[in-house]
C-alpha cells in the first residue's frame, strides 16, 4: 500500500453544540479493509463523516490520501465515495440509468464516456434488469446497490460506508457486504453493527463514548466488544 492510501487522524476532536462527539482520536491506517464498530452514539458515524468533510474537526487534523478535507474538500469528495444507511436519501434521479449518470455531471465527460461508464456500472452492481426502472420502485437492497453504483461510477480511491446494511434484510445485507468486502478494488472504511462483516476486515476500530477505545486484529477487538456487550 502506498503512502497515497494513508489515512491519518491527529488528536481529532469534534463537538456539536458544546457536546463532544469525538475525543482525541489519533490513528494512522494503511489497511485496505477497515472496520469500525461501537454502540449507538459512540462516535462511529462522526468519525466516518470526517473522511470527506461532511463533518469538520473542532480540533486536530485529518489527512486522507494526502488531502485535508478542510482545505481540499471538493477534490477529496471526488476521491472519497460515501454510502449512507438510508438509500432513499441518496437517490436523486427517477431511473437507475439517470441516477448513475447524474454522478458524472460537471466532470467534463462526453456523452459516450458517460454512457460507457453507466453501462459497466449497471453490470457491476447487478442492476441490468432494472436499468430503466423507477428508482423509487426498487427494493431496499436494489436501492443500496444503486447507491453503491452511484459512488463507484465516480471511480473513487476510497469508499466510506456508514452502516450500509442497517436497513436491509439478511440476504441483501450479505449481498452488499460481499460486494463491498470482496469485490470493490478501493480501500474501504466500513462502519457497521454487523460483527460478521467487521470480522472480515483487515483491521477493526472500536469506539466508545466518542473515544477510539482500541484497534487491531478484528477477532480480538470483536471478542472484547462482545464480552463487554453480552
Amino acid at each position, binding site marked *: 500500500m502506498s503512502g497515497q492510501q494513508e489515512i491519518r487522524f491527529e488528536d481529532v476532536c469534534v463537538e456539536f453544540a458544546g457536546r463532544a462527539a469525538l475525543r482525541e482520536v489519533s490513528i494512522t491506517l494503511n489497511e485496505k479493509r477497515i472496520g469500525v464498530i461501537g454502540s449507538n452514539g459512540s462516535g462511529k458515524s462522526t468519525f466516518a463523516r470526517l473522511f*470527506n468533510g*461532511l463533518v469538520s474537526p473542532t480540533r486536530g487534523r485529518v489527512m486522507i490520501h494526502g488531502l485535508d478535507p478542510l482545505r481540499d474538500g471538493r477534490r477529496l469528495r471526488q476521491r472519497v465515495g460515501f454510502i449512507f444507511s438510508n438509500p*432513499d436519501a441518496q437517490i436523486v434521479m427517477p431511473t437507475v440509468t*439517470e441516477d448513475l449518470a447524474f454522478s458524472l455531471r460537471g466532470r467534463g465527460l462526453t456523452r459516450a464516456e458517460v454512457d460507457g461508464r453507466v453501462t459497466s456500472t449497471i453490470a457491476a452492481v447487478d442492476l441490468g434488469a432494472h436499468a430503466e426502472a423507477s428508482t*423509487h420502485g426498487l427494493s431496499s437492497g436494489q436501492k443500496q446497490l444503486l447507491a453503491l453504483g*452511484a459512488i463507484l461510477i465516480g471511480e473513487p480511491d476510497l469508499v466510506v460506508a456508514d452502516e450500509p446494511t442497517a436497513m436491509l434484510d439478511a440476504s441483501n445485507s450479505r449481498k452488499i457486504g460481499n460486494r463491498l468486502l470482496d469485490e470493490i478494488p478501493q480501500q474501504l472504511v466500513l462502519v457497521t453493527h454487523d460483527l460478521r462483516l467487521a470480522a472480515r476486515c483487515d483491521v477493526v476500530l472500536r469506539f466508545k463514548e466518542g473515544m477510539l477505545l482500541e484497534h487491531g486484529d478484528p477477532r480480538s477487538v470483536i471478542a472484547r466488544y462482545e464480552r463487554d456487550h453480552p
Partner: protein
Amino acid sequence: MIALYHPGTSVLHRMPAGAKVLVFAALALAITVTTGTVWSLPLAGVITVALYMCSGLGILTLLRQLYTSRWIVLVMLVSQVIFLPLMDAITNTSRVLVVIVLAALITLTTRIPALLDATDHALAPLRRLRVNTAAIGLLLALTMTAIPVISGFASQIREAQRARGVPVRPQRFVVPLLVMSLKHSDELADALTARGIE
C-alpha cells in the same frame, strides 16, 4: 401538481426539451393574452386534448391531471367569484387550468436530465454574472424527484396513524410530514455533497 415522466416514443417525447418548453410557453402566453376572444379558450382546450392524444398518454392521463389540479381550481374559482361575474371567474380559472395541464405535459414527456441540460443551456449567459446555473438546474430536478418521496412519507404517516387508531386530522398529518421532509432534505444535502455535487 408536477407530473413525472412517462416513457414513450411520440413526437413530443422525441422533441428537444428546450424547444418543447419554448413552444409550450408560447402556447401558454397565447392563451393568457387572448382573453377578449371568445374562441380562444375552446381552441386551447382542443389543442390540449390533441397534444395529450398525440403524446400517446391519452385522455385518461389528461383527466388525472385535471383531477390533481382540483384544489387550485377550487381556490381560484371561489376567490374570483367574490369579485367577478360567475362567467368571468369560470373563464379565468379554465385558462389557468389549461396552462397547468400543458405544463404537466412537458414533464410527462421529458426526462429530467434533458430538462436539466436545457435549463443549463438556456441559463448559460448568466454564468458571466457568476450565477450558478448548475444549481438552478439541480433545484428543478430535486423539486420534481421529491414528489414521490414526499408522497411516500404521506402514506407512511397515514398508515402509522391508522395502525394506532388515531383519527386523521390536518395538524396531526402536516407536522410529521414537515419533520420527515426536513429530515430527508438534510440527508439528501449530505448525500449530494458526498457525491461531489455542491
